[in-house]
């Protein structure tokens, strides 16, 4: 690495570490996430100009905060002068005074956890469309650049840039307060936050588009967000449930890709390749979720199912009856045809293929599953175990036609070919 590129890498690393805290602390002061991000960006540009020549300062976070503070005060004073001319002394004037007096160092250290949590809730606010929440969260909380987010979601950079600009505008126009929701708002708003994190995770873990089976960068970003939330909102069982689910699923990352890049299904995976550190962390997070009061929620139940797999050293050791029962509970909390399908598969494993097929066949007319490749794929498996091979082959071919992922399609075709031998 040349000195220049090393300096550049160091500055990018500082940005990744400092930008969430910087933006959160600034947003708390100026009350506007979009403005806070601009101020942070400006400070970062100043760093890019100065640091390669002078070296990275000993306390880069404080340096960036000082630079952002100067800009924030300038901006608010300009706004104040304008308001005074118009004989309107508004909230901005007060904010400028407060800002001038504020101890930024304290803001960066004392209240930062709370500010970060506010930033998460704001980025995932329901006034925003789901894809805007995802983009803003990755941008503000993970320090990703617009280019990186665009690449991750396979959309043009200009589209992603516009999505982010519009999201910030929407927040400002709707006058979304920079706060942590309380009372009856908290549960649905937390649900929205967790949904964003899980969406990022899933897009990385089971890519819905493109030719690659997984995109590990997104998995890592989601894990980082989840682990962050577990620290910021430790009393929320579903936060730990989601972390557990993601840790346990990602423990299988290397095992679910074959040497040629092809997908390897859970029961065919070499379990020696499962990451023990992530399993341990996942089981610990699940324990934390279970230790908090209340019935298990959507994510904790799914994590409990993943834990059944993680605990089984060999596929035949899997406690399928428990998995079927957990899917039953999941169907109560969050009824959906996909959950019913998974329950049917678990029942098929626990109590035989005929029992499973009976449940799967009940889903045949389900409109939500009409284009869902896992329905014919699951049916094929049960039919094959019942010795009804030609029907199983036909179902696998149907599943392959429905799949949008190249790797998944190849796997389904391979299974169909194997049954015809």
């Amino acid at each position, binding site marked *: 690495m040349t000195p220049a590129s*090393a300096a550049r*890498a*160091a500055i*990018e*690393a*500082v940005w*990744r*570490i400092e930008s*969430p805290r910087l933006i959160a602390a600034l947003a708390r002061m100026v009350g506007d996430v979009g403005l806070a991000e601009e101020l942070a960006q400006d400070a970062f540009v100043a760093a890019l100009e100065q640091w390669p020549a002078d070296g990275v300062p000993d306390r*880069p976070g404080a340096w960036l905060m000082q630079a952002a503070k100067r800009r924030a005060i300038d901006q608010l004073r300009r706004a104040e002068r304008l308001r005074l001319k118009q004989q309107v002394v508004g909230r901005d004037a007060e904010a400028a005074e407060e800002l001038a007096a504020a101890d930024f160092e304290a803001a960066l*250290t004392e209240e*930062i*956890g709370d500010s*970060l949590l506010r930033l998460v809730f704001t980025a995932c606010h329901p006034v925003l469309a789901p894809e805007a929440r995802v983009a803003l969260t990755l941008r503000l909380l993970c320090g990703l650049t617009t280019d990186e987010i665009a690449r991750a979601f396979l959309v043009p950079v200009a589209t992603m840039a516009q999505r982010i600009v519009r999201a910030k505008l929407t927040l400002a126009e709707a006058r979304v307060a920079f706060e942590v929701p309380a009372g009856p708002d908290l549960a649905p708003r937390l649900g929205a936050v967790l949904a964003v994190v899980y969406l990022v995770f899933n897009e990385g873990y089971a890519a819905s588009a493109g030719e690659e089976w997984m995109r590990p960068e997104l998995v*890592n970003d989601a*894990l*980082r*967000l*989840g*682990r*962050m*939330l*577990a*620290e*910021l909102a430790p009393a929320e069982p579903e936060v730990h449930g989601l972390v557990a689910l993601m840790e346990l699923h990602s423990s299988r990352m*290397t095992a679910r890709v074959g*040497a040629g890049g092809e997908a390897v299904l859970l029961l065919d995976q*070499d379990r*020696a*390749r499962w990451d023990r*550190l992530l399993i341990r*962390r996942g089981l610990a997070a699940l324990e934390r979720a279970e230790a908090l009061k209340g019935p298990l929620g959507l994510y904790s139940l799914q994590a409990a199912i993943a834990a059944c797999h993680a605990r089984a050293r060999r596929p035949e050791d899997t406690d399928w009856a428990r998995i079927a029962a957990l899917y039953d509970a999941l169907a109560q909390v969050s009824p959906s045809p996909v959950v019913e399908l998974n329950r049917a598969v678990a029942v098929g494993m626990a109590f035989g293929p005929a029992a499973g097929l009976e449940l799967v066949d009940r889903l045949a007319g389900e409109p939500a599953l009409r284009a869902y490749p896992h329905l014919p794929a699951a049916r094929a498996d049960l039919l094959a175990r019942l010795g009804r091979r030609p029907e199983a082959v036909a179902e696998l071919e149907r599943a392959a036609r429905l799949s949008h992922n190249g790797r998944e399609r190849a796997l389904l075709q391979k299974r169909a070919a194997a049954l015809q031998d």
Partner: protein
Amino acid sequence: MRFMIFIQPNLPPSTEDNLIPSRDAIETMSRYNRQLREAGVLLEVNGLHSPNEAVRISFTGGKPQVVDGPFAETKEMVGGYWIIDVKSKAEAIEWAKRCPVDPEGAIIEVRQIFEISDFPPELQEAVWLG
């Protein structure tokens, strides 16, 4: 990418058997650890008992020889370690620079942890045999 960060705190040689860090030192380190957790990068952290209790096993001609501490040279002895999950080596270095250590003489070492993809394909099978 996972990194292990070792701290060599540069403790002065001490005759005490088991040094327990002061409340101040513990709180300072806890604040740092909280920062790592709030950033979602901390996987594990552990502090190690005093170097005086360390045992060294040295090998000569294939023979292990056990030597009990304390040792005269404590400067390079590890006092604790973190495992962090970050985007790049540069990020690991930046986190390490933020560690609150003795301002004179402490050393922190940053080492990347092997991942399966770091091995050539023909060795990957062998890695998992254990």
